């Protein structure tokens, strides 16, 4: 039951959510809500994390061993599940960042942007 939705400028490109999550976690362990807020605020609210996709993505990353999780207590004094980057996750982040840079540069070249 796929909903037909016009492409929103703020919608995160498929496959890049993983990268953004990993990048956010380099600052230290965080729970889901913080991660979403962090992505949004760091991008100056240009990107909107579809919260429904966030948790499947987190679980996927955990299964791949890129992040690890444990329950803890948040700043608000609430129980929350904290995710942290693993060594494997760090390696993957470096590789994925490299891939992303190469790709955006290539796309920029095609689109004719001088300072891509």
């Amino acid at each position, binding site marked *: 039951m796929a909903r037909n939705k016009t492409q929103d400028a703020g919608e995160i490109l498929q496959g890049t959510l993983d990268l953004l999550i990993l990048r956010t976690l380099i600052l230290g362990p965080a*729970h889901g*809500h913080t991660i979403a*807020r962090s992505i949004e605020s760091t991008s100056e609210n240009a990107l909107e994390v579809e919260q*429904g996709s966030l948790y499947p993505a987190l*679980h996927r990353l955990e299964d*791949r061993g890129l992040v690890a999780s444990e329950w803890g207590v948040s700043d*608000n004094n*609430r*129980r929350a*599940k904290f995710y942290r980057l693993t060594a494997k996750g760090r390696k993957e982040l470096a590789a994925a960042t490299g891939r992303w840079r190469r790709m955006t540069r290539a796309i920029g070249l095609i689109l004719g942007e001088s300072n891509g």
Partner: protein
Amino acid sequence: MGFQRYLNRESKDRDLAEEIQSHLAHEVDANLARGLSEAEARRRARLRFGNPRTVRERVWIYRSLPMMDGIFRDLRDAWRSLRKTKGLTIVALLVIALGIGVNTAVFSVVNTVLLQPLPYPDPHSLMRLVLFTPQRTLDGASVPEFNLWRQQTSVLRDVAGYDTGGAGLNLTGGDHPMQVQGVHVTHDYFTLFGAPVIAGRTFTEEEDSPHGGNVVVLSYGLWKQRFGGDTKIVGQTLPIDNTPYLVVGIIGPSFVSDNPADVWLPFQFDLNSQDMAHYFRVSARLQPGVTIEQANAQLKLASDQFRRLKPNAIGRQNHYGVFPLKEWMTGDTRTPLLVLLCAVGLVLLIACANVANLLLAKASGRQREFATRAALGAGRWQIIRQLLAESLLLSLSGGLLGLLLGYASVRLLLNVNTGSLPRVGENGMALALDMRVLFFTLGVSVLTGILFGLVPAVSASRTNLVASLNESSSRTGSGSRSVNFRSVLVITEIALALILVIGSTLLIRTYLKLQGVDPGFDTHNTLTMAMSISGDRFQASAPVDQIIRQGTERIKTIPGVVEAAAGNGLPLQGAFGVPFDIVGRSKGNAPSTGSTGYYSVSANFFEALKIPLLRGRTFTDRDNASAPGVVIINETLAKQYWPHGDPLRDRIQKAPGAGPPFTEPPRQVIGIIGDTRDGGLNRDPFPAIYIPLAQMPDGETALNSRIAPLWWIVRTNGDPHAVVAQVTAALRESTGGLPVAHIRTMDEIDSLMVSRERFNMLLLTVFGASGLLLAAAGIYGLMAFSVEQRTQELGIRMAMGAQTSHLRNMVLRQGMMLTIIGVVAGIAASFWLTRFLASFLFGVEKWDPLAFLLTPLLLSAVALAATWIPAVRATRVDPITALRFE
């Protein structure tokens, strides 16, 4: 990634739910901090997050193997659906169990007899040495031939001779003399078959040469039974026929010999012997890397050499060769077993058609269920998959049931009658339920499930969604196509059943014809028993003649005994063969006038068996060693060699040109007696001559005593079993303590003769009857279904004033139409198929008019009866109810 993704789905889901709750709480906190009211903060948080369930489902699906999940769901649904229609499920289950059961039964026999390798090391290199003639392949061996084969070391090794242990031996000494099976073997025998020695050793080459001494090897069974498993027996002596034999070794329990043996004795051949008598068999192994073709080529060369040395030994077109031992042992059972396998295949096909029919009927009542599923988004493949899951669940449970049923029934059957099948062991004990049988049954079950499930599944998935949902009456919706298809299934069932029934009719007729064959003598009230006379005492004719005279005299004094006699063979059991000349008659280029079966018999032999005398006279006590040589011939020999002349004027020279031990003067033909069926009831009688035992050359009697027992024949005037104890006692007294074995009446031997035919007939009849029943159930089911579907139509017809007989006939006509089409197809197929039965038939043509006329009538009658019930039901339709019906 790994498999942990799929583990602990439930606990991970609970974890996720909690995580989502935590997320929402944080979002609410944030909203509250922005100054929203509590209610608004919650509302926005939920709105922002979306449906938590969707998120959980996404993760759940990500953690699932869609295939496996689908299969589990399908199986669960299938189980529910099958339970909902219990009656139908049970019937289907039984039909499948029957179909798979008979297949498992026959396959387990095929597996044991034909597929399993021989229980010896490297079984594929084991060969039987044979003589190929243009007509047949023979496996009898003589000493010069054995010697020749032994020398072919480039292609053969471990060349070993062994006999069938026919004569039996008497373990004397102790309180209980006992007759045991003693098989004579050459010393390579144990190496050839890899027999495990658990104590002592086997024969040395020296012990296996003439004057090698009296030595014996014990079987495990005899050792346990008679000597309590005491290994001290090795090195001691054992009295056999009152001669001490040195026990040299004991063979382990795992060794299964070709012919059952209690003890093994060395043959002690004189390899220089020129005696061409065939009285044992020879097997050998191919040298490593040598093919059967290479061995045969080498043996063909050897045959040519042999022919130059002994010009009359083997015919010009004959030559020696090898034949794989397993194929040799199972050769004549191969075709019957494969025919039976085909027959049960037909039964299974009928069963499949039947279950497919049931499932189609069930599916047609479920049109709306499928339409609803389809409307809810189930793809066509999903509906097919669900129905296939149902049929597979059905077929696998049926298969399991059939496995138990089939295995139990075949054990039971073989326990009653092994059908003289080789390799199934005593009472079928050797029949194994091994992996091959299990895989066969599993495979057949899966195949069956797909076969009978696919058609209903595909046809159900073709449901016209809108029509099915809108139509208030699902009864008329897809009826006609389904009925058409089911008609085809029923026609197929009838045709297949007819093939089976025609086949079994032919076998029943064969069996009855065999039962009706006159064996040439009176089998009733005749007791027979075997006495081993292999001891030194009986190496000449006179002592044998003497114990027969004494024995018969004693037996005749027993009340109820009418006549007693003895001979070196029994009718129906086959005879030794021997060449002969008719004195004074030209034999052209041939080495002798002809060859014939021969028996050495006592006086009153013909009277005891009631073999009719056609001309001349029978033997009396006066035809003894000092009297002139005489011979009696049978009718076949008389007709074959004296088409015009008078045999009673001629003399016969038995075994012309044979070596010294067999030399004897020509004999006067003194009588002609009726033929007996000695090559089997289904064979024409062969020529035979009878010679007074007292007049046999000593050398020949010595050989006969060694390789075959003396058979006693006692005619009684009441039940022969009543005198068994007295006869055996009388014989023991009169012979100085010799025991007897193989005590059977001639009627029992007669029925053993046809045991293979009875086995085939019984099985095929069971299969035919099953097929017939299944087909009847099939046509009944279809007609009942069709009547039910047409209730409305029938009601209207009735309301319009149709006669009940008219309605009944309409249904009957429809049913009989299917039957006739099926019968015609079945007859056509049978005309082609019965050729494969031809070799089993006796006295019946493969296109036997009776079978081809009567069976279709029988089948039509059964079909008519099966159609009658729904037809009558059609006439009972109440127009009012019928019209209100949905």
